[in-house]
């Protein structure tokens, strides 16, 4: 493992640049637009919500998740197609997705994020180790303790017992605070809808994965399998759907059985308190756009302790203030009664001081 001087300098510069900029994902150019930002009229979130209200009580209390092995991804973007297809998002033929990976103006030239019309994106990074491309699929991570849920001031999110974090569009006011709170920048917003703009996000195909757990209510869409649409279509077996605890074991097993292949870390096992989507990578996670500076504290904990403080301030602090006021009133009343007859004369002369 000898590194050439040049390579060493290059790496040091990258690390320095990375720490200066926060994370290296960010050092890559972020794109600003794309057709999916103009999308409006999303129906997937509401559909899943209605289903959730009907069946949640019947579901098992078992966390599910998806393990993403980024070393296997070939960047075909079929998952994006399948996601759009199942969720009725704006779509184009699958061949165009595959074509867009190559050529001068290929999709991978910019780092993309989820927008109103797409719940998942595949980004390309180049390994600093060997220069080979690494493809990383992004979507909602479905946190164990979701920041979006805790930040929502009209309670428009639910953490389901089987993992998916669902958004409830018909109480959402559109304040977009969940977008501020989400450490993974997941929720997107229909900026080009004037009257009924919605927050949109991945549902982990809640309406598909429940089909194996319970009998679907009458009238529900029948999925081709109980896997999320993206997992089902993947030709490279990048993703594995299963119970979260099993997936964590599987991930560590893969790391153990393939020495040197993976970084010894399962991204999502503990990040912001744990997420349902877990990632394996051959290079440090901040080099493939997964932030490593977000910590293991669930984001809602930051606001919880503050809210506790405010409550204490308002309850404990209120009493001295109330007594102070009472004291002030009684003092003023005493003064008032003693100087009542002279008050009318006083008013005239004190006008200069009191205007």
């Amino acid at each position, binding site marked *: 493992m000898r590194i050439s001087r040049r390579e060493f300098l290059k790496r040091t510069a990258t690390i320095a640049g990375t720490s200066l900029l926060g994370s290296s994902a960010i050092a890559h150019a972020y794109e600003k637009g794309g057709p999916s930002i103009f999308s409006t009229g999303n129906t997937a979130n509401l559909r899943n919500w209605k289903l959730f209200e009907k069946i949640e009580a019947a579901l098992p209390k078992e966390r599910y998740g998806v393990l993403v092995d980024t070393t296997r991804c070939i960047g075909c973007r079929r998952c994006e197609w399948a996601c759009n297809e199942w969720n009725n998002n704006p779509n184009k033929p699958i061949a165009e997705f595959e074509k867009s990976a190559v050529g001068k103006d290929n999709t991978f030239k910019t780092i993309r994020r989820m927008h109103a019309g797409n719940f998942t994106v595949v980004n390309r990074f180049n390994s600093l180790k060997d220069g080979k491309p690494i493809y990383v699929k992004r979507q909602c991570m479905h946190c164990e303790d979701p920041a979006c849920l805790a930040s929502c001031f*009209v309670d428009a999110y639910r953490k389901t017992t089987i993992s998916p974090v669902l958004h409830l569009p018909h109480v959402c*006011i559109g304040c*977009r605070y969940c977008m501020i709170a989400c450490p993974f920048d997941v929720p997107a917003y229909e900026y080009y809808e004037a009257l009924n703009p919605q927050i949109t996000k991945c549902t982990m195909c809640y309406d598909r994965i429940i089909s194996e757990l319970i009998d679907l209510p009458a009238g529900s869409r029948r999925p081709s399998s109980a896997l999320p649409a993206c997992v089902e279509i993947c030709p490279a077996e990048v993703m594995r759907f299963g119970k979260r605890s099993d997936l964590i074991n599987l991930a560590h097993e893969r790391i153990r059985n393939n020495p040197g292949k993976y970084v010894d870390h399962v991204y999502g096992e503990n990040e912001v308190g744990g997420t349902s989507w877990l990632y394996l990578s051959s290079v440090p996670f901040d080099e493939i756009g997964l932030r490593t500076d977000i910590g293991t504290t669930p984001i809602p904990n930051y606001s*919880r302790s503050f809210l506790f403080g405010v409550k204490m301030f308002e309850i404990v602090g209120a009493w001295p*203030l109330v007594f102070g006021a009472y004291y002030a009133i009684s003092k003023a009343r005493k003064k008032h009664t003693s100087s009542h007859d002279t008050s009318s004369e006083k008013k005239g002369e004190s006008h200069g001081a009191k*205007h």
Partner: protein
Amino acid sequence: MAQNTNTWFREKILLGMTPRDYIISNFNFPNLIAAGFIGLGVAVMIYRLFFGLGSATNLSDTYPWGLWIGFDILVGIALAAPGLTLGTAVHLFGMKDYHHFVRPAILSSLLGYIFAVFALTFDLGRYYRIPYLIGYSWGFSSILFLIGWHFFLYINICLIEWAPALFEWLNLRKVREFFTKLAIWATIFGVIIAGGHQSALGGLYLVAPSKLHPLWYSALLPVFFLLSAIFAGISMVIFESSITHKVFRRQLKHFDQAEFDRHTIGLGKAAASALIIYFILKIFDIAHYNNWAYLNTPFGYWYLVEILGFVLLPAMLFTHCAIRGKAKLVRFTGFLTAIGVILNRLNVSIIAYNWYLPSSQKYYPLWSEIALTAGVVAMLVVAYRFIVNRMAIMYDHPEYESTH
């Protein structure tokens, strides 16, 4: 009867003029400018309502909050703190000397909140659902929920505190007495409520530790916001009173310049103490998070501009003025402090937010966002003037006893 209402309208609304005279008397240059701003602002509002946020603003999925939150809410509410600071000082700490600053302060708080919420409705996607927050769907774990409710309560509190002036104007003696008695309790709750939500506005960013620059992010954000709201409130009183005492001079029959200057300096002293505590806490904050290294980066220089130029400098100027008795410089320093608070709020909400993005990806407001904000500010100024010209805000009503 019809004639009767007409006279009432003429006396109360048109200041005793005929409609024709009233319009002519208001046809002047400052009003034309205000009308221009308001016209443009209203045009943008209509555009926003018909074409959505995407067309009317530069907001994006990366920058969900822009100028309308950063300025209209964060800056607006901080600068609308005069009611909190002066109400507390006079009603709770018994500083009766300052009682004639109270009514203008409460009015500016009331209007500040009302217009901030008004501007906010254009930022909310489904503004027509705002009542949901009050009585339909409660997100107890959200700091924004606390803010929403506190805004609602605080506007009501300001209305109660302002009500005596309103009913003096309407000549309803009994109702006025009722609200005068209620005012002290409103002030108490006002202190609690305003303290709670001023700090909560800083608390909003507690959930974004990975997005806000480390120099601005801190577990103490709520404390910083509360403290800076206090000196923002005081400096706004200094700033506003220096303007209103010029503009509405004819309402002040026995105006005593020396007395006014002494009070201005007194306010400066209070602001200086708040600024110094704030500055010391900021230094502790850097030391606690060991952020010294960040100071020697472009964001660090910007941070130093804010902290040295708009916190330490005003603190020193206020102290200097208090020792030397320079009222004019206090007024300038009040202005400087207010600018500093504006800078701080915009830093937290826009400039240091998503700080790692390259400048080409950063948010900057579209002209229409600035136009709407300017329009709302113009509306606020016009409303303030409208009320001060009619009600006993700057002076004690001659037919009523002073409430203080």
